[in-house]
């Protein structure tokens, strides 16, 4: 019965699912969750750097969305809303940590932190010839401040001036963090320094 309900909801778009969820159909909200959980989890993981915190960020994101369901945008902005919420929650968490340390998977393994499972994730980019695991691992080796800027700009499509507003830093700082972060990634993935 429940599976029938879920499958009947699959063909609905986000706006229709939000409307149904607003009228009390919990299965519609569950469908929204299944549809967008990977995207929200990726953003959360890329910012906080470990699976335990990333799961907490996703949980908080969907709980907030559920509590504000009445005012949730139904004009196709659901993913943007969820990612923005996840980003804010994740950035607050990183700031609260105040360690500024890198969070490479190797470091996490040695300290017993919950390691994200990449086994089902597809190849990141055909031309790059790396898996999502390798790309995320490379991303997690970048210092927090540069990684957050990279995630906001490339994963979420936030403009440079908007990132400056969000983080309360000058645009020049955003650009230099973007430059250093990209250069770090390029060296890590291509394993070379171009002179």
């Amino acid at each position, binding site marked *: 019965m429940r599976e029938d309900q879920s499958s009947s909801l699959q063909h609905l778009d986000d706006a229709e699912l939000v409307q149904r969820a607003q009228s009390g159909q919990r299965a519609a909200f569950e469908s929204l969750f299944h549809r967008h959980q990977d995207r929200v989890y990726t953003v959360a993981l890329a910012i906080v750097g470990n699976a335990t915190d990333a799961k907490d960020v996703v949980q908080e994101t969907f709980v907030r969305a559920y509590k504000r369901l*009445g005012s949730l945008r139904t004009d196709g902005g659901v993913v943007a809303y969820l990612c923005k919420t996840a980003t804010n929650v994740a950035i607050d968490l990183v700031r609260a940590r105040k360690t500024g340390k890198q969070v490479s998977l190797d470091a996490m393994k040695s300290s017993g932190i919950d390691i994200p499972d990449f086994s089902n994730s597809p190849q990141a980019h055909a031309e790059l010839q790396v898996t999502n695991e390798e790309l995320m691992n490379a991303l997690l080796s970048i210092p927090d401040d540069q990684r957050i800027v990279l995630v906001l700009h490339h994963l979420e499509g936030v403009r440079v001036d908007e990132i400056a507003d969000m983080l309360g830093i000058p645009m020049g700082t955003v650009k230099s963090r973007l430059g250093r972060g990209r250069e770090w990634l390029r060296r890590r993935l291509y394993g070379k320094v171009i002179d």
Partner: protein
Amino acid sequence: MKCETVRQLLAESDANALSAGVSPEVAQHLGTCESCAEYHKELQTVSAGLGGLTIVAPSELYPQVMQALPAKPGVLSRKMALLLSMLVVALCALIIEYYYFYGQYRQQEHVISTSCVESMPGVIPTPNTEEYSQTSQLTLEQLTPSQ
């Protein structure tokens, strides 16, 4: 243009500029410098790879989130919430205004009565227990005006 300058410009340019097009000066350099052209291509690929980065959420996330959801969703729409908050603000303003002006009115009333007593002692006599006691002892003859 120096290679170093070109690479810094490329690294710091936004994703759109990186994929859509670079400035004419940079483009001219890329046309002649194989090393910088390769650098540009690698940055474009890294940028595209990041844009498509997808990690599959762990299966335990679903029960974790569903368990954390409140029993009922928040149903207050944005318009309703705005209307409600405006009503609350208006009510607060009314209460503040009432107490402020009522307080001022009471104060003014007090000032007026005090000043009347002080400035017109003949018109409104101050209560004097001695006078009252004398008055109470007056006889009817004393009160009747003499013809």
